[in-house]
């Protein structure tokens, strides 16, 4: 479409009937506001995992029977260092009762020293003898009674499981149902987390000698949700800073309020549409409204910049707005479409939470096309500018001329060569470091939360004091019915387990065969020389009879038996080592009887997630680059122009990966989208600058001159856009949630450096490519 034709079209469609247009936006905004008010927080576990990944098929198949990922642990520490006192046992008893009454808890499975399922078995002369660890006659004020419990704890082998290795703490553990078995309702993890936090508060105030440490998926979700609430404060701060900046930039309250208003409208629409489409908001996608707001303001600034310049040039508000709208419609549209497409490439990733992020962000950006390319100029056409306005704009522009001259010198051929050489060097060095970027979470504890968060400190405490690993990957041995009574089956599992046990990243392993060997030794008076797998069906059956299915080591048909592998951490290379060992073992030791299926347990989920993220990385990058390249080619119809825009973008992408290596940020569900977002949004600067510059170049002006003129027209807006976007996301760096902080750092980096790339490297490249 020719510029004049577009001009007419826009004028006729939007500006002839301004009232109708505004009324339409008002109605829709009210409706969307209504929907948005019903937005729900949706923190489901399954959204975070790649459900289509083969490992997750195993996970979902056995989840109901083996659970495991949804365990909670409440450790009570006696600050004196010894739990054997009356007050501590009182606290432990109370804690046990409180845990049993948590909503959605699997009551019979709750275990502590006080629960009836905590029994000891000991070898005596005429066989085995056993009883509850805390007998009915227990009297905590009696030292002998406490001593008897201490002995029973040792006999039952509960040290390290229910009692800390150094007897300074005791544990209450339980399983939380994902779906309440009675009400059939989805479990409210946040309510569970709150119940747990209440136990902590109440017991710590009642018993000054007791300190609680609580971990488990439900608690983690609770803490993440609590951390996500901080987002509203960040939003407020970002909003205020942006408002001040827009005012300083525009010298006009009207010009400041309107882009902020239309950007908020975009956020309202986005949240409303989200609810209409049946999505909730979760701790990860809660950041998207920020982004939409920041993108909205940055595009709005381009608009008020153009309108302001037109008004300063003597046009009426209506003419100035209409002209600015026509002028910016195509580049704005291209830029926003490339954002949208950048987001949509995230659909390549088979993890629901990322797909939701992709959809919500795409909706948000698509909405900005309406609010900031149409609504904003229409609103601006009503604006009234004081007599001093034109003067202010002109003065401001004059002040900046010096800077623009300096910047424009990058487009001189000699400087351009140096600039391009430096950029190339940066790209090479960056690529070298980017190569070391790791997949997955690189740090201990719950990666979503800060290393120094209460949750991660509690995790560190519990893994330190108890012999319980929270980093578990379990591999499901699938065999025939009653497989656990077949020696060959058990031997196959045992050999497999031993193979994994020998890996350097593995701390310990556990399966039904471990228990079977220990119990067999138990049947022969605890003699370790009998600690072998029984060979005969009836002895095998006997050796397992004492194990409850609730131990989670086999199902009721004895057909599925998980091998639990406790890893020393959940770094990607540790996970990979286990996964590769399992795959190698399977190909070298094929068994018709037993199939070892990857993978369950928290680390199993991480393994699948890492693989999904790794597999999606390149398709996503290729997708997003193809999209922006095509959009540039279409809008500029020039390969040279496209290269000028894409090369700085690519270098910044490489540098971002190098930054991830340097800051030890792994490529995860949270940081992978950032790459697509960074490219999609980062291209905007280049498009806005180049669309102006190309006009001057085509008019036969030198690159230096063309760039200088472009900067005069839009340089302000580009700088401003970069800063607005960066501020919008940089507040996340202070989030209580580690992944939000990581996203904040990376996006801030990409927004700022893409802006610098557009004002420094782009003109340098242009002067090389367009040499005459």
């Amino acid at each position, binding site marked *: 479409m020719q510029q004049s034709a577009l001009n007419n079209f826009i004028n006729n469609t939007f500006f002839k009937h301004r009232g109708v247009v505004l009324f339409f936006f008002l109605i829709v905004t009210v409706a969307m506001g209504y929907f948005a008010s019903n937005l729900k927080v949706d923190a489901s576990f399954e959204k975070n995992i790649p459900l289509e990944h083969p490992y997750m098929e195993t996970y979902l198949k056995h989840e109901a029977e083996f659970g495991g990922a949804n365990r909670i642990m409440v450790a009570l520490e006696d600050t004196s260092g010894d739990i054997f006192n009356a007050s501590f046992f009182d606290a432990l008893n109370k804690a046990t009762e409180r845990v049993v009454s948590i909503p959605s808890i699997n009551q019979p499975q709750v275990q502590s020293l006080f629960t009836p399922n905590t029994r000891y078995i000991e*070898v*005596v*002369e005429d066989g085995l003898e056993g009883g509850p660890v805390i007998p009915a006659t227990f009297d905590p004020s009696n030292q002998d009674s406490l001593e008897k419990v201490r002995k029973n704890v040792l006999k039952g082998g509960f040290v390290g499981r229910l009692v800390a290795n150094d007897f300074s703490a005791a544990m209450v553990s339980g399983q939380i149902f994902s779906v309440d078995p009675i009400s059939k309702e989805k479990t409210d993890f946040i309510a569970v987390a709150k119940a747990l936090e209440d136990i902590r508060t109440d017991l710590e105030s009642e018993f000054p000698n007791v300190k609680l440490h609580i971990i488990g998926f439900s608690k983690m979700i609770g803490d993440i949700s609590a951390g996500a609430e901080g987002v509203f404060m960040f939003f407020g701060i970002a909003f205020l800073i942006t408002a001040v900046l827009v005012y300083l930039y525009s010298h006009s309250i009207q010009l400041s309020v309107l882009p902020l208003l239309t950007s908020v409208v975009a956020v309202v629409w986005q949240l409303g549409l989200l609810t209409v489409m049946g999505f909730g908001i979760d701790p990860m996608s809660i950041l998207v409204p920020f982004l939409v707001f920041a993108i909205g303001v940055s595009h709005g600034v381009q608009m008020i910049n153009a309108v302001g310049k037109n008004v300063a040039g003597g046009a009426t508000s209506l003419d100035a707005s209409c002209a600015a709208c026509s002028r910016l419609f195509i580049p704005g549209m291209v830029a926003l479409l490339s954002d949208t497409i950048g987001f949509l490439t995230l659909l390549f990733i088979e993890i629901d939470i990322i797909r939701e992020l992709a959809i919500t962000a795409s909706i948000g950006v698509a909405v900005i096309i309406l609010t900031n390319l149409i609504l904003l100029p229409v609103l601006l056409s009503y604006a009234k500018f004081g007599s001093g306005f034109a003067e202010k704009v002109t003065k401001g522009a004059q002040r900046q001329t010096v800077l623009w001259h300096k910047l424009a010198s990058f487009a001189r051929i000699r400087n351009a060569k140096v600039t391009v050489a430096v950029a190339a060097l940066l790209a090479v060095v960056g690529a070298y470091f980017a190569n070391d970027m790791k997949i997955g979470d690189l740090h201990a504890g719950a990666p979503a939360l800060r290393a120094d968060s209460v949750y991660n400190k509690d995790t560190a405490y519990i893994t330190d004091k108890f012999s319980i690993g929270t980093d578990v990957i379990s591999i499901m041995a699938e065999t025939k019915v009653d497989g656990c009574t077949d020696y060959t089956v058990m031997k196959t599992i045992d050999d497999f387990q031993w193979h994994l046990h*020998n890996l350097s990243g593995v701390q310990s392993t556990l399966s039904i065969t471990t228990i079977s060997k220990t119990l067999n030794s138990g049947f022969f*008076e605890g003699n*370790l*020389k009998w*600690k*072998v797998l029984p060979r005969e069906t009836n002895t095998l059956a006997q050796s397992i009879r004492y194990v409850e299915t609730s131990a989670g080591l086999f199902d009721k048909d004895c057909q599925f038996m998980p091998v639990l592998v406790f890893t020393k951490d959940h770094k990607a290379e540790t996970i990979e080592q286990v996964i590769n060992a399992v795959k190698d073992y399977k190909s070298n030791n094929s068994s018709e009887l037993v199939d070892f299926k990857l993978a369950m347990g928290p680390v199993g989920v991480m393994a699948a997630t890492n693989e999904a993220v790794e597999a999606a990385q390149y398709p996503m990058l290729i997708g997003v680059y193809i999209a922006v390249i095509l959009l540039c080619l279409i809008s500029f119809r020039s390969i040279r122009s496209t290269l000028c825009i894409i090369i700085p973008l690519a270098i910044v992408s490489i540098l971002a990966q190098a930054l991830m290596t340097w800051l030890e940020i792994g490529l995860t569900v949270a940081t992978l989208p950032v790459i697509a977002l960074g490219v999609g949004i980062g291209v905007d600067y280049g498009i806005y600058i180049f669309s102006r510059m190309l006009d001057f170049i085509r008019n036969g002006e030198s690159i230096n001159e063309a760039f200088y003129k472009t900067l005069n027209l839009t340089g302000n807006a580009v700088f401003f856009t970069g800063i607005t976007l960066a501020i919008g996301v940089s507040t996340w760096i202070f989030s209580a949630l580690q992944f939000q902080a990581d996203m904040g750092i990376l996006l801030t980096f990409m927004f700022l450096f893409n802006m610098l790339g557009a004002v420094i490297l782009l003109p340098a490249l242009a002067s090389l490519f367009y040499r005459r």
Partner: protein
Amino acid sequence: MIHSLKLLLLLSLTLFSMAHAAQSIEAQKADKSLLLDIAKLPEDKLVAVGERGHVLLSDNQGKSWRQVITPTRSTLTAVTFVDDKIGFAVGHQQVIIKTADGGETWELQFENSEDIYYPALFDVWFSDAEKGIAVGAYGLYLSTNDGGENWEFVDQESLGDPDFGLPHFYSLDYDSKKNRLYMAGELGFLAVSEDLGENWESLESPYEGSFFNVGVTPSGSLQVMGLRGHLFRSADDGESWEEIETNSIASINNMLSIGGSQLAYFSVDGVMLFSNDDGMSVKSVQTVDRNGLMNGVKTGINTLVVVGAKGIDRFDMSGQKIIQ
């Protein structure tokens, strides 16, 4: 006649199983696996044996270990050396392996098919390089007169209880000064042979629970130990017994002379007992990890190298774990 038929059957089974025998697998953490016995060769070379046919050697007093491959994956329960070269190890599935080079290489002497259950061997003893005995579960008793080339079943029915049958034979020890060979086992079983195992005679037992070990101290006292921390000492070759208070209910697996009249005992649940008076009194020590301890040897002047449920650990003479 019946005897030679049995032997023929055995031989054919042996040949059959040799074809099926699988070698042990080298494993990174073999020194952390279940290890059941340890022997010290002259010049302080150590040999530890355990599950999955694991045999580990140490040339530096137990500071580091190297695994050698053996021709079996059965759990090895005991090891003995005749001199610095020739040694034997026995284990589950009646496996017997022999080394002629100080434990570096092993050859299979006796093993039954993997597919069928055979009772386990729990101890092995040789009077010289030719003549030896291996004992095990349900009264299993094998003997050889040709350095293990041929092993013969010996029925020890006379030692059993008519109602109960034969007990598990857990331990052999020889009093060389008095030429008395002792055997101990399940349910208070005790027997003695004065002709290197040709003929056996039951001894009156001081305890109805199982004995896991019988041992003769350098000063000539006889000691039996086992279930739930029970320890008995006899100063008159098993005629009369005195029960020693151990203050421990952890079953005792083995005894080791650590110089003069000092003794160390190794028990399950990581308990060690120490005596300074030839076992007339003992002091119990709980080691840190609580891992079951099977047997140990002394190296240098003050180090115990001990094997057990979680592999090899080193302790000082007071039971403190030595961390490298």
